[in-house]
């Protein structure tokens, strides 16, 4: 056997590869959206798919998000597996009626006779210097809509594995792709055979004993960085990457918090009415007597996403996370 030097791939490349493999394996998989064909998407995530599979399998649609999702519903009714790209998070909003009133409910409405295996890829979150409407974190809307799965990868390998699982799922999946991780790389090797990662399982990204950081998507690397920095303060932080918000992996999360007795939920999305409230409440309900301190939240502020030059003040960073960890009532410790 010869060892080949392999260039690590970016998350964007892993996502492309996931769609390519899914399309090759299953002729019912169709990619559609604005600029996904000839251009390969504004983030180049669908690069090469139209060329390889033809424009009927990877289609540049007219510019109308409700139309995109609505026609995808019809295609799914006829047995296809549409993978829809919404160009930016805020541009999924025109499709909300189709999403809430149909995509999320069609299986239930028809007693399971008309499932809709649609994957909705949403480049999401901030930190890329995008002008207004290009940096929203819209997961709160999806969480509150029963019938959807909501998934957000944080690593290159998960981007591949979870997207494959999403496309293979018989249920609609909102697949949140952290925009600012598109160009992140890790040890994922595109030359190796890749594995599908089942939806619904959180993972401990870093073990620790002092407290648990519960997070997902773009905030995972930030939490890992915070955990490193926390060592200087004498805290050994555990980092749980949820990976999937729906279904929610109570087991992994609660096991960690029961071990550490303290938790901070971290996400970019606005705090009020955001996922953090749900997560904190769940943890409290389940681990109340293990908690040494309230579960705290570090989130985006409750404001419209700021202009690029101010976004760093909005985004949860290492300092803000450490500050929250510091407020976990350590005095009571000794």
């Amino acid at each position, binding site marked *: 056997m010869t060892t080949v030097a392999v260039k690590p791939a970016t998350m964007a490349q892993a996502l492309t590869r996931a769609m390519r493999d899914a399309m090759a394996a299953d002729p019912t998989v169709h990619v559609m959206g604005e600029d996904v064909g000839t251009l390969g998407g504004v983030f180049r995530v669908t690069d090469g798919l139209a060329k390889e599979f033809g424009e009927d399998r990877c289609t540049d649609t007219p510019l109308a998000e409700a139309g995109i999702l609505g026609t995808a519903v019809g295609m799914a009714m006829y047995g296809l597996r549409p993978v829809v790209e919404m160009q930016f998070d805020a541009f999924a909003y025109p499709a909300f009626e189709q999403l809430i009133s149909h995509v999320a409910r069609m299986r239930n409405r028809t*007693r399971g006779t008309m499932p809709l295996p649609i994957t909705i890829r949403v480049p999401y979150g901030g930190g890329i210097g995008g002008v207004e409407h290009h940096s929203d974190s819209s997961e709160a809307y999806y969480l509150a809509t029963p019938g959807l799965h909501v998934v957000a990868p944080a690593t290159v390998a998960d981007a591949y594995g979870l997207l494959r699982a999403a496309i293979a799922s018989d249920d609609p999946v909102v697949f949140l792709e952290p925009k600012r991780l598109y160009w992140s790389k890790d040890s994922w090797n595109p030359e190796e055979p890749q594995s599908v990662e089942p939806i619904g399982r959180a993972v401990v990204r870093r073990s620790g004993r002092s407290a648990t950081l519960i997070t997902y998507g773009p905030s995972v690397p930030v939490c890992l960085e915070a955990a490193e920095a926390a060592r200087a303060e004498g805290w050994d932080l555990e980092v749980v990457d949820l990976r999937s918000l729906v279904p929610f992996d109570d087991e992994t999360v609660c096991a960690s918090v029961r071990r550490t007795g303290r938790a901070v939920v971290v996400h970019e999305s606005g705090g009020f009415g955001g996922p953090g409230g749900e997560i904190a409440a769940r943890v409290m309900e389940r681990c109340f007597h293990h908690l040494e301190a309230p579960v705290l939240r570090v989130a985006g502020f409750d404001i419209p996403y700021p202009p690029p030059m101010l976004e760093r003040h909005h985004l949860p960073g290492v300092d803000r996370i450490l500050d929250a960890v510091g407020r976990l009532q350590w005095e009571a410790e000794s």
Partner: protein
Amino acid sequence: MTVMEQRGGYRPSPPPAWQPRTDPAPLLPDAEPYRVLGTEAAGKADPGLLRRLYAELVRGRRYNAQATALTKQGRLAVYPSSTGQEACEVAAALVLEDRDWLFPSYRDTLAAVARGLDPVEALTLLRGDWHTGYDPHEHRIAPLCTPLATQLPHAVGLAHAARLKGDDVVALALVGDGGTSEGDFHEALNFAAVWQAPVVFLVQNNGFAISVPLAKQTAAPSLAHKAVGYGMPGRLVDGNDAAAVHQVLADAVRHARAGGGPTLVEAITYRVEAHTNADDATRYRGDAEVDAWRDHDPIKLLEHELTTRGLLDDAGIQAARDAAETMAADLRERMNQDPVLDPMDLFAHVYAEPTPQLLEQRAQLQAELEAEGETP
């Protein structure tokens, strides 16, 4: 560069790429709604088809009356009647092949029934025991759609998918005059035309969206004129002339099947009853208007044609009525039975596999019901 140089070197050129993409003339609807009954065209119509349409109209009218009666008896939560619009409902059902798909709106249970769906299954939504009372794949009837116009992109997507697969399938989507104002109408028609999807849109212009008359809904010459802006043909038809609606739809279906792309058909009809049994139509319209339309009634029109031409006699009329009564009696009887409900169904179909969270909630409800003694 000086002015002189420019003057010598530059000649204004026309805009390079632009040209009219299609000739609009054939897309424009005729000035008057197309009619068959009472015109020469009726002579060319297939008598068998006319008689079949007649029988279905009579049955449809009876179905509407029966369903409305069931609301009074508390057997249906609500019923939006299609009385007066039976020609559209019935023609839409009859024009399709078995393999084609029908996309009804919330008012179109009759179209589903005329296509062969069991009336009890068609009425499940309105009775309230489940959302969709049938397997859409069985009769190729999409779920009755409540959010207006949202079914139109579904029809386009399905027709497009069938075409990609090489299947000979046409989708026919129904929508009301009010529904044409929604963005989804626009997006669906545009996608259909760009994709040349085999889909036919039938707008039942019944004059009202609940209380809002057409004049407050649009300023267009006709709703069929909207077709031009998508590059598809628009057709106007007398919506109470079952033969005409059937013919116009049949042409459009044939056109779609042959790869000619979508058509928008506007049928001029009238909602003779209130919006639903819960509505009070006297708040927004007078009797005179309704009476005028009662005269231009789809059943009367067709009956007149058939009897005048000796294609229908009293016995035939009676036979149609009897068949309708049988349907109504059966419907009444079956709707008078309480549906069997299983509260656990609330959790059964939300996902392919229930989430752990749903399993917890299911267990909670189960425990509650056991405590109440409702289930064994």
